[in-house]
């Protein structure tokens, strides 16, 4: 009996799951996320795949992971060192034990510690027994045995029974974290229950049994001396959904199309880690989203440009090497001055690099990776859920200014998930006013001139094929206001300046950046995109510790927000943590002539809060 297990209240718990790639770490992670969220916690998570090829089971190379942080307050990252590691086999334990907090808990399936399995990872002894893990609180549970026992009565293949191990584990964790078991039982019914097909019903039953066995195991063994209790976070009311960044972006594309009254269109070519976006979007035919999977990235963007020319709301989705291939055609969209959103889910580079790992090293490519002087706005998403808003905003700006816009996310954000407050379609901003096609009816007596510009936004007048009497020619050569090719030196100068000014102008309407902490201070830490969470978490903790540190986050990475220079000028030092060799730093240095310090990390892995904290302390000379 574990009745005497102490219920410790905690502010946050970091849990990491590791196991074979095939073991469904992402799945169980998502289940715990949903459970915690339903229970009122805030959650942030981080999946960690092995290499792109399915590595052999039971090996270190084959270990797949999923880390999450649950808390009673707003949670910005998946946390630093895990409090609890659930490692499903010896390889998983060997791989991840070193990350666990000193004295932290390691839950594992003791049945998997066979001699063969241990040999595979080069262990001669059994780490559960030989003291290797003595620094941790190890819970070795014979999961396989217990699950098979619990399902003894069920007629199912052994392999299928073993797959219920995950719900057994959920049971243990549900008890351990003092969660409402009904939520899981409901979920099982929802997913595999009555509405499901026959074989699934059986799965529902089996999973229910396994889950209950897990719950009982927690309650009845004396293995656990302590349980955690997390209070509910202050979370805005509403309907929530756990979502990956790629899925959120896919939804934003369809939503932006609907709000703009235009058919949304994606021209793309699969590439890790952006493919899931295309997968999910391909399902949205019922809301008129057209996806064209093309022969290559160039065709992907070019069809999108074509669709944009025809008046669709066009997107193309990719990752680094794909962006490299799209740059020439991105220049075409820029010259045509048609709206286009390029979603780039960054990964480790250069070249094919580290396809499954995260990095932020396409920023300079996004800024400067085109021939000629070519300017495009760039927006970065801060977390998975934020991909919805970032993509939606990008579409708005693309329409409003008739320009290509780049959305930067990364492998971590794109494939990671977090709770997202699902907006209602009619709460979203109406984009129709930004479409504003030129139609003769609205311009009686005027003639259509293709590069005539709105004096404020510098957006050109835009008439699409099919518009009565507005037929005209545009192209990729330099041209004058009428769209006619021009080699006039001053026309090129002026058009180049227009194209630049259009993007610069956007800065004027961007919201001012808000400073987290004092407005003037010793150190300013600037985050962008995926570093948002770690920096926010770190700065919050530093401020709580009374350190002279403030933080800001750049949502639009280009152009810079209007008050950025002024903010920067009020700090002694500026630190930019980046998953690259200092790319935003370079842009900031060039623009503001400030000796920005770069905390650079290129290890395929996002920042941990402590890395930022350590660096700041170092800068403070502590």
């Amino acid at each position: 009996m574990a009745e005497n297990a102490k219920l410790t209240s905690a502010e946050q718990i970091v849990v990491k799951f590791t196991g074979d790639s095939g073991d469904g770490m992402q799945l169980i992670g998502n289940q715990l996320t949903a459970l915690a969220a339903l229970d009122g916690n805030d959650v942030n998570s981080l999946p960690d795949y092995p290499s792109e090829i399915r590595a052999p089971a039971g090996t270190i190379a084959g270990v797949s992971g999923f880390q999450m942080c649950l808390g009673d307050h707003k949670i910005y990252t998946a946390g630093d060192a895990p409090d609890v590691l659930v490692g499903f086999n010896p390889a998983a334990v060997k791989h991840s034990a070193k990350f666990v907090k000193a004295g932290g808990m390691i839950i594992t399936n003791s049945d998997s510690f066979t001699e063969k399995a241990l040999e595979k990872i080069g262990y001669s002894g059994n780490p559960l027994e030989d003291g290797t893990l003595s620094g941790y609180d190890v819970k070795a549970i014979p999961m396989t045995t217990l699950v098979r026992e619990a399902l003894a009565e069920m007629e199912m293949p052994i392999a299928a029974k073993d797959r219920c191990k995950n719900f057994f584990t959920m049971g243990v964790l549900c008890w351990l974290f003092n969660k409402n078991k009904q939520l899981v039982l409901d979920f099982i019914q929802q997913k595999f229950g009555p509405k499901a097909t026959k074989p699934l019903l059986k799965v529902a039953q089996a999973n229910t049994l396994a889950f209950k066995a897990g719950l009982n195991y927690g309650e009845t063994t004396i293995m656990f001396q302590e349980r955690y209790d997390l209070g509910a976070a202050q979370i805005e009311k509403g309907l929530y959904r756990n979502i990956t960044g790629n899925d959120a972006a896919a939804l934003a594309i369809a939503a932006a199309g609907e709000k703009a009254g235009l058919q949304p269109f994606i021209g793309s070519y699969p590439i890790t880690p952006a493919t899931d976006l295309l997968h999910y979007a391909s399902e949205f035919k019922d809301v008129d989203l057209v996806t064209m999977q093309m022969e290559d990235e160039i065709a992907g963007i070019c069809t999108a440009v074509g669709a944009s020319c025809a008046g669709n709301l066009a997107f193309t989705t990719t990752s680094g090497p794909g962006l490299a291939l799209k740059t020439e055609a991105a220049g075409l969209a820029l010259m045509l001055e048609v709206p286009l959103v390029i979603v780039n889910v960054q990964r480790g580079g250069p070249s094919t690099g580290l396809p499954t790992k995260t990095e932020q090293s396409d920023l300079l490519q996004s800024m400067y990776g085109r021939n000629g002087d070519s300017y495009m706005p760039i927006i970065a998403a801060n977390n998975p859920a934020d991909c919805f808003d970032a993509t939606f905003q990008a579409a708005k700006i693309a329409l409003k200014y008739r320009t290509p816009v780049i959305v930067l996310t990364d492998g971590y954000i794109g494939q990671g998930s977090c709770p997202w407050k699902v907006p209602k379609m009619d709460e979203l901003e109406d984009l129709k006013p930004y479409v504003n096609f030129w139609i003769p009816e609205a311009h009686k007596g005027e003639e259509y001139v293709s590069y005539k510009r709105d004096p404020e936004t510098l957006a050109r007048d835009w008439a699409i094929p099919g518009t009565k009497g507005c037929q005209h020619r545009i192209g990729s050569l330099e041209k004058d206001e009428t769209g006619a090719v021009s080699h006039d030196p001053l026309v090129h100068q002026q058009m180049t300046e227009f194209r630049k000014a259009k993007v610069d102008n956007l800065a004027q309407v961007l919201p001012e950046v808000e400073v987290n902490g004092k407005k003037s201070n010793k150190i300013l830490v600037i985050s962008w995109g995926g570093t948002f969470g770690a920096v926010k978490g770190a700065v919050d903790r530093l401020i709580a510790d009374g350190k002279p540190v403030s933080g800001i986050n750049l949502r639009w990475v280009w152009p810079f927000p209007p008050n950025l220079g002024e903010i920067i000028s009020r700090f002694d030092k500026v630190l930019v943590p980046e998953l690259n060799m200092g790319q935003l730093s370079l842009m900031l240095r060039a623009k503001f002539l400030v000796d920005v310090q770069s905390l650079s990390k290129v290890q395929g892995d996002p920042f941990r809060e402590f890395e930022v904290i350590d660096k700041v302390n170092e800068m403070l000379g502590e």
Partner: protein
Amino acid sequence: MADTQLTKKYFASDAEVKWCPGCGDFAIMNAVRSGMVAAGKPRDEVAIVSGIGCSSRFPYYMETYGFHTIHGRAAAVASGLKVANTDLDVWVISGDGDSTAIGGNHFIHAIRRNLDLNYVMINNKIYGLTKGQYSPTSEVGQYSKTSPYGVLDYPMDPLKVAVSLGGTFVARGIDKNMKLNEEVCVRGALHKGFSMMEIYANCVIYNEGAHDKLTNKEEGANFHIILRDGEKMIFGVNSQYCLVQDGFGVKAVKVENANQADILVHDEKDAEMAAILSGMRPDNGLPIALGVIYADDRKKTYDDMVYEQIDAVKQKRGRTMDQIMQEGHTWTV
């Protein structure tokens, strides 16, 4: 708008045409305008997409919507444009280099997908705009600025490739035969599906006389055949040659030596015959095929299928955006 209003002039813009005097492209523009007249769409429902090249300047000379894009990408841009708005009559005008060199990949995939595009490839067997380098359709041994000692690459025959990709309309014209080009463009314009029209053109500056063998007054007719559906395949200055089957191929023989019944009759819908006809070359003792080599519109177009699928999914799932957004693991706080 009544069809009667559509004339070639109606499709002519007033931009000054900047091709070299004598360039073969002029004649082709005329044929394309006839195609548009036949298609019957008012000019503000016509879009022309081109790449980069002398030939790709085409859109500027047409009073339609025109998109002069980047080198090699016209087919891809046009694919997106057509799928985005299937009501448009979409033409692609591209050169041999634009289509088969840098644009080769988009070209083959657009054919394969059977998008409803009218694709005119102006083949002068040279890169004109960049001042005379050989192209994938140049002949072995051809001298050009980048082949001062002769081309080594075997030429590609775009129409043969088009047939191998399941192209549903495959035809060839030649600048000098204006009537034939009109026919080709009109047929192409009316064809539902990817209409592949290769038109040989003379680049008077960088590849003068490339097609002389075919256009030559005295002997030209001995080296090409104008195909007409249902008609016997007879050619030659004095109609003295005919084509007869030879294994899986054909051979050219003197009409007087042929058994009348053996003289092949052209069948536009015979894809296997098209595979042979599209690849005939004087090097192999066979005439170049001009006219409509293959035409069959029973295959669905990609663009139609896109919307059929959309309709089917609407029928089957029919979710609203709000419903989609609310799917998955949800909970209420």
